[in-house]
């Protein structure tokens, strides 16, 4: 949104293609509906309204329910809306694909009632819906944010089961001085934890060995270890979270080179300070280019638009640099907290490389055992695992399993993961019918 606003204000013709039905991405999802229940969600969420209003006034053309399924350098997008695909060419394309939850596989994670913490937050944002009886399990700021939002909604979680260990916190401490540049964010985090304490929510620490089963009533039995003890909780909804990672399927498919972010244990597209990639005319910004949060995403969007304005000849390099000052400062400040957060809430090895009986590829029902068996039989790389076992060949196209296959191939050792190239991401990056593709003609080409 911020990129569209800056680019349109700078005199460019802008087309914004959003797959969702309303603007806001996931962080500000449905904020425009101004539901009464949004009061549970806090001030940061409400601040998204400013962006929505600015977008509406910017003169940018916005299409919703518009799924981009192919991106070519040069540059053009092929997108689908209401079952009809069309091609739009442009001098520059900005990919702001955002983040997805890091998959949190464990035995029983595919049961109805096991969902992501983000999913619960989306239900709050879009439908004002609250779980009846929920346990929150995993690690990361979002876990605390969702718990606090549920408490504010009068529906506190039954328990928090936290995988963070003192060792992780110790590794994070050297990054704390730098994180103080984001003192505001740190204080917000402490406030969330304070709210959870004040609500008296039961917290299980140093948790591991997650496993879920369910009975005929559908209730979930969640077992885990906490400080060495075996624990059991019964709940209607089990919400898991281990941080977010960039959604890179579209940037991979566009042919952009990616790099391994060791601190975040994820791949992200390589780009310069203006978001320009190694593919001419293709730019990236926001969490899809590297996890930084809402404020950083907004600043990165502004910088990307300024970079595009300069590349289009609308402004000089000096003007670009001058206009970029505030955004660059915001980016510097918000990025300062990342090394601390990434280390403090690192995903545990057993989530990156889960037990044998865990389903890894949800779409194709491929277990960790099958993958390890495949490795012992000679499938040495990610692509071979994919083609021999079908892991990654279902409709989600590897979004839910690529990280875990990589984790199993490297036996949970994050230092080795960056060397394991992901398999090719092929277009269409979302399923499209043959009929819709066949109906695409050159007459459908339009210039943004």
């Amino acid at each position, binding site marked *: 949104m911020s990129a569209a606003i800056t680019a349109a204000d700078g005199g460019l013709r802008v087309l914004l293609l959003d797959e969702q039905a309303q603007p806001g991405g996931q962080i500000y999802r449905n904020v425009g509906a101004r539901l009464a229940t949004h009061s549970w969600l806090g001030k940061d969420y409400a601040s998204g309204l400013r962006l929505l209003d600015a977008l509406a006034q910017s003169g940018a053309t916005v299409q919703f329910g518009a799924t981009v399924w192919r991106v070519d350098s040069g540059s053009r997008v092929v997108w689908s809306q209401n079952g009809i695909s069309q091609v739009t060419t442009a001098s520059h394309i900005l990919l702001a694909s955002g983040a997805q939850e890091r998959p949190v596989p464990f035995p029983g994670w595919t049961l109805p009632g096991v969902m992501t913490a983000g*999913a619960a937050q989306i239900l709050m944002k879009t439908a004002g819906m*609250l779980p009846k009886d929920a346990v929150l399990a995993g690690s990361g700021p979002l876990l605390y944010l969702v718990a606090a939002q549920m408490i504010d909604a009068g529906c506190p979680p039954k328990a928090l089961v936290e995988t963070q260990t003192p060792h992780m916190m110790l590794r994070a401490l050297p990054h704390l001085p730098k994180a103080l540049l984001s003192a505001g964010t740190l204080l917000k985090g402490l406030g969330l934890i304070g709210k959870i304490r004040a609500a008296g929510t039961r917290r299980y620490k140093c948790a591991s060995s997650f496993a879920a089963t369910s009975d005929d009533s559908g209730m979930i039995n969640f077992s885990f270890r906490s400080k060495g003890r075996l624990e059991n909780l019964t709940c209607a909804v089990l919400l898991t979270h281990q941080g977010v990672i960039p959604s890179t399927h579209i940037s991979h498919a566009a042919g952009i080179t990616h790099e391994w972010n060791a601190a975040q244990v994820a791949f992200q597209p390589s780009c310069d300070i203006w978001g320009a990639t190694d593919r001419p005319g293709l730019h990236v910004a926001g969490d899809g280019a590297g996890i930084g949060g809402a404020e950083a995403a907004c600043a990165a969007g502004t910088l990307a638009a300024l970079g595009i304005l300069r590349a289009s000849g609308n402004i000089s390099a000096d003007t670009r640099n001058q206009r970029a000052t505030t955004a660059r400062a915001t980016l510097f400040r918000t990025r300062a907290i990342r090394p601390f957060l990434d280390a403090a809430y690192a995903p545990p090895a057993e989530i990156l490389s889960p037990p044998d009986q865990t389903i890894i590829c949800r779409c194709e*029902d491929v277990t960790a055992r099958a993958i390890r068996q495949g490795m012992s039989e000679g499938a040495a790389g990610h692509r071979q695992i994919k083609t021999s076992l079908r892991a990654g060949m279902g409709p989600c196209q590897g979004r839910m399993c690529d990280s875990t296959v990589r984790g199993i191939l490297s036996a949970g050792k994050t230092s080795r993961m960056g060397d394991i190239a992901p398999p090719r991401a092929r277009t269409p990056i979302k399923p499209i019918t043959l009929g819709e593709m066949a109906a695409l003609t050159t007459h459908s080409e339009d210039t943004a």
Partner: protein
Amino acid sequence: MIIVSRFQPPPKTGATAEFEYEGASITAPQGISLAAALLAHSGAYTRQTAGGDARAAFCMMGVCFECLVEVDGVPNTQACMTQVRQGMVVKRQIGLRRLNGCNDS
């Protein structure tokens, strides 16, 4: 055995949409996704994988494809990316979709 909803009923927004799911009639607030409406209706599975594994909505943002259902005859529809609509007919997706032998029309 009926598996009750895992969620509290969504607040009413005023306008509603009534639609059919597996023979039952569901009334849901306008503006929510089909996945949310199905979660509000029941905690049971909404699809089965090719291997018979029971699944329901997982990520609510179009990434995981677990919420696939058949809407008005069109299978492989992500319920979380579909808004409730008056009169829609929704069925569970059991296994892989069937190809009808001709173009979708």
